[in-house]
């Protein structure tokens, strides 16, 4: 997105550029198998990601989910990495026109485009992860990322020796903001005087920016960092290695990226979530809703790194687990005011 903005500053011959961009996009679709000529009645599923599936996080997890749908349901699948918001709608339309049964826009940012496109393709189900809008053939999928983020905050606060912890996000998307608020509340539950620094990079790709922001927080005394910045987050791990501080990974299990510096990851089990909706669509049981997927559905989890787990004292561990149990049993209400109204209105599978 950033790159395209820069393009618009520098470009002088717009029509020629548009042609170039279109050529590039269609080449990409072809390269990613978007043009596969499958049989008309096969169950076909498409995924749009906002970033590269090599990010070891949000996008990579969704791609793993797409492959799981292919492998366990025998579906024909297609993936495309979108470049700019202008392309979201076009990509949705392409898949709709090709008769895909399920098209997943992976992220809140796809929702507006999906709402515009969905009425034109009534036989295609559109699903937006982190979305909260519904239409007859449009569903949202809300990951209660904040539930496990709250638990991560509890651990971070107690393990911090400086009393300062940090959280770094790509951009301030609603789920990212909610998870950082949860992280902070979890931390303050354990240690009311803790300082939580929050920063956003304005990018999900710029590794150098991720590292610099992490170094800036570490220089302010932060010794545990929570990151939710996808590919740019790899820079935060690099800073953690260099300055020997601990981090929490996000979205996918990132414990192995820096095994001595990632204490745990707030994981969204995207394969599980995408399989769930794909099965409903295939069997005809799909109903327009906002799926609520969190600890209870087993889709969101705090996965601790076995190599560093022993640093967490037993009493803290018990406290974290009891919060988890309370969330699963519906007795936990510390985050109710943060969640968006539509989230609460949705049904739980």
């Amino acid at each position: 997105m950033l790159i395209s903005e820069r393009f618009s500053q520098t470009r002088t011959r717009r029509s020629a550029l548009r042609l170039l961009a279109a050529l590039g996009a269609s080449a990409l679709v072809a390269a990613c198998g978007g043009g596969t000529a499958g049989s008309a009645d096969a169950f076909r599923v498409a995924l749009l990601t906002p970033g590269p599936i090599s990010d070891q996080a949000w996008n990579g997890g969704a791609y793993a989910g797409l492959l799981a749908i292919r492998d366990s349901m025998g579906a024909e699948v297609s993936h495309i990495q979108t470049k700019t918001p202008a392309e979201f709608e076009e990509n949705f339309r392409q898949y709709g026109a090709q008769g895909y049964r399920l098209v997943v826009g992976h992220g809140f940012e796809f929702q507006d485009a999906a709402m515009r496109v969905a009425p034109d393709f009534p036989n295609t189900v559109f699903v937006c992860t982190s979305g909260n809008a519904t239409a007859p053939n449009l569903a949202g999928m809300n990951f209660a990322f904040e539930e496990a983020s709250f638990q991560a905050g509890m651990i971070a606060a107690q393990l911090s020796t400086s009393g300062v912890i940090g959280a770094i996000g790509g951009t301030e998307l609603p789920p990212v903001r909610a998870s950082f608020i949860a992280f902070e509340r979890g931390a303050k539950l354990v240690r009311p005087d803790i300082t939580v620094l929050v920063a956003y990079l304005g990018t999900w790709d710029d590794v150098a920016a991720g590292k610099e922001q992490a170094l800036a927080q570490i220089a302010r005394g932060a010794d545990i960092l929570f990151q939710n910045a996808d590919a740019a987050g790899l820079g935060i791990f690099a800073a953690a290695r260099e300055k020997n501080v601990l981090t929490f990974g996000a979205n996918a299990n990132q414990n192995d990226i820096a095994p001595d510096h990632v204490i745990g990851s707030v994981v969204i089990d995207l394969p599980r979530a995408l399989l769930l909706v794909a099965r409903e669509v295939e069997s005809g049981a799909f109903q327009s809703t906002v799926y609520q997927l969190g600890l209870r559905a087993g889709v969101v989890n705090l996965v601790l790194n076995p190599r560093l787990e022993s640093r967490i004292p037993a009493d803290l561990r018990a406290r974290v687990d009891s919060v988890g149990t309370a969330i699963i049993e519906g007795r936990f209400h510390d985050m109710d005011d943060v969640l968006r109204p539509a989230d609460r209105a949705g049904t739980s599978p």
Partner: protein
Amino acid sequence: MITPLDDFLAAAVRTATPLALAALGECITERSGVINIGLEGAIICGAFAATVTAGAVGGSSGVAAGFAAGAVAGVLVTLLFMLFTVYLRADQIITGTAITLFALGLTGLLYKTVYGTTGVGLTIPTTGELPIPGLSQLPVVGRAFFAQPLVTYGLYLVVPLLAWWFARTHAGLALRATGESPDAALAAGVQPRRVQALAVLTGGAFAGVAGATLVLAQSGTFVEGMSAGKGFIAIAIVVLGRWSPIGVAGAALLFGGASALQYLFQSLGWREVPYQLFLALPYVLTLLVLARASARAQAPAALARRELTLG
């Protein structure tokens, strides 16, 4: 004793280093009358080649080999741009844009080919800081300027050298003449095509090294699209630095400083201020300085001109 000021200045120099490298290369290119919008593409190719090479060779010799590979990759992708613009006289803006799009796609494809579709959390050895004894002990500027990776020290040499070369050597004069008036240069016995070709390729090498710096001296990993617009910032820095090496280095440092200020402000925890204001800071500052400077700025007269000579 490390003060917050030390941290801020060090971050400024770190952030400025790859920008200054790419911008100095672009400065050479533009002084010959060619504007290379494909700079971003050369940076990402340099970053990828450095990653693969440093990973394959390993160790500290791997880092050196990585920088060399970065420069070579920058030259190779720019060679394509050079053939189209210098010899076929295609439109420079369109060709450069195509090169950038091509390079971003190509590196993504190669990354997936080499490291698997879903990639790996690559960890590449980095050069690390190499404090210069004595100089790094200086108050205020010591740690910021003299406890940096080797590539930054290279810049300290290249900048004055380039300024001298532009102003005082026959070759430097030939380059500037080509950018100002190819006809006059031709009449004076200079071969404008050859000068432009060499200038463009040199710019590509600089951009490739800038990409290698991102990987080998900073992040220690490769991510698709990690150039993240730095090539375009570098082009703006050339204008800001008014096409002079010293000016370009200063402009890069200014932008690096504004970015570092942004990181510092966010880490101070002022929740009331929207973070977007901080993120906009480097760009707003650049715009302000640019607005003041542009009255006196003079681009090479033949910049981006398609027809090389009138005769």
